[in-house]
């Protein structure tokens, strides 16, 4: 009862805040009427910005109209520099998905091995400590040079940036499974493989999923930057291209969509995390 009324009130406050933000944005960017005393040629050159005192920043109405245009035709393709936003987002999501899944396939089994073996854990620790803090974009030149394909290089960068949180969380989760649960499996003479799947995996799953959730967030942050660098396709390239076209409206729309997609990815992983979390 109280929690539902709290949610209702919070929702109301959110709407009020959004309306206030849109209102201020609108007021700050609206036209201030025609400015006088200007030669017609100069006015023509400067466009509406100068002639009608219009701000260079698009207002919420412009953005809304443009967004509606994009939403109606998300998948059009008029050549390399003019594709629908749906296509661009699709490219980015596909790259993030591929790089991320590859990272999952490497990080989780490897993390399991390291977590279960104190020897490997100690031996690999210095490498992980050095590799982890490297900005994923620093790998880009090396990737481009060795792979010679910009799209695969972007996938590689996603792979390398999403592997560390997953690897470290898997190692930590596996290494800190409660001793008593392991002992239960031992007294039941459960073999190593079965033990890994029936005790260690479920016990470490919440920690592993937390790592996966951090990774997907980082991967989505990095893909925008990576696509700005490699160009061609993707939402990051779209932002950069629209900046070169001086279409701030499109840039704002892209920023908004990047945020929404990032949130959705996070929510999906949060749901998975809830599914494997057990109350103690």
């Amino acid at each position, binding site marked *: 009862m109280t929690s539902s009324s709290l949610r209702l009130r919070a929702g109301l406050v959110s709407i009020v805040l959004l309306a206030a933000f849109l209102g201020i944005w609108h007021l700050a960017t609206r036209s201030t009427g025609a400015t006088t005393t200007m030669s017609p040629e100069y006015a023509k050159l400067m466009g509406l910005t100068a002639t009608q005192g219009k701000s260079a920043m698009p207002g919420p109405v412009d953005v809304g109209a443009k967004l509606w245009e994009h939403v109606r035709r998300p998948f059009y393709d008029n050549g390399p520099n003019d594709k629908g936003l749906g296509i661009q987002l699709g490219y980015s999501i596909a790259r993030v998905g591929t790089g991320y899944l590859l990272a999952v396939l490497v990080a989780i089994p490897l993390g399991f091995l390291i977590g279960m073996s104190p020897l490997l854990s100690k031996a690999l620790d210095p490498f992980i400590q050095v590799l982890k803090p490297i900005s994923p974009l620093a790998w880009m030149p090396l990737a481009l040079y060795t792979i010679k394909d910009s799209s695969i290089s972007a996938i590689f960068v996603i792979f390398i940036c999403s592997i560390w949180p997953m690897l470290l969380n898997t190692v930590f989760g596996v290494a800190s499974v409660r001793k*008593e*649960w392991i*002992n*239960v499996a031992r*007294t039941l*003479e459960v073999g190593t493989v079965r033990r890994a799947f*029936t005790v260690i995996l*479920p016990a470490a799953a919440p920690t592993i999923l937390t790592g996966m959730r951090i990774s997907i967030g980082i991967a989505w942050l990095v893909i925008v930057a990576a696509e700005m660098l490699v160009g061609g396709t993707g939402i990051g390239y779209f932002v950069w291209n629209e900046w070169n076209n001086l279409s701030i409206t499109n840039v704002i729309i892209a920023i908004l969509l990047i945020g929404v997609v990032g949130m959705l990815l996070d929510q999906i992983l949060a749901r998975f995390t809830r599914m494997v979390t057990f*109350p*103690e």
Partner: protein
Amino acid sequence: MTDKFISIEGIAKRYPGASGATTTIFENLWLSMARGEFACVIGHSGCGKTTVLNILAGLDAPSEGAVIVDGQAISGTSLDRAVIFQSHALLPWRTVLGNVGYAVSSKWRSWDRAKVRAHAQTFIDLVGLTGSEHKRPSELSGGMKQRVGIARALSITPKMMLMDEPFSALDALTRGTLQDEVRRICLETGQTAFMITHDVDEAIYLADKIFLMTNGPGAVLAEVVENPLPRDRGRIDLHRHPLYYALRNHIIDFLVTRSKTFTTETPHHDPRDVPLVQIGKPGLTLAAGSDELRQTWMPETNPGLSA
């Protein structure tokens, strides 16, 4: 002591201590139990009871010596020796049925789901948890969790049960009920049981033999006390038995004073031949310092009380 079902032979446990020295928790420890016997171990905190139990279970290896069970030296854990953990150690992501079923399917790998389920259900019913099969451990009370632990241990029909203070975290009422159940089940199934406890009354109610350990480090098994109470004793009228107080006082006396001084006062203590104390049987009682108690609580000298 002809049939030595379990024989602990000269085990020691040492840990590397500070600055290269080794700490000896205990050494040259000998202990034996007959089939179907219920033994309790009593000793102060830190003397090494859990260590002994873990070695018996095969979860821990002794630094020296060996453990023989049923004529064979043990190496590692075995489905023949079930452990009931102090902290119940249930897998929180499994239901009650899932936890018991996990043990059942670990023992009988070829069984199908229905068979595992039916077998697990039998033992859930046995500990009185019918109706809670689909609850998760977080939805159970402490006593119910411990029952699941007992059901899990029993479900694999072990040859012996090892219990590390199984009831110490429970309230007196629940503890009493579970003691009754464990006693009934062990008697019915002829289990050999080895239990660690801090509760003297629990030991008197459950045990056939009580092992008294001195304080660590360098703990020794000081005495084996035979329980003089009849096998069909009830928990409620335990204290009415003429030998009850003699037994209880003997154990408490050991815990309060002799557990500290035993090693210095008994320099010729032979760890391979630990004195067997038989309260109420004159001539056989070997314990030092309890003459007075024995005098007071001899059945003959208390005609008012009957067994």
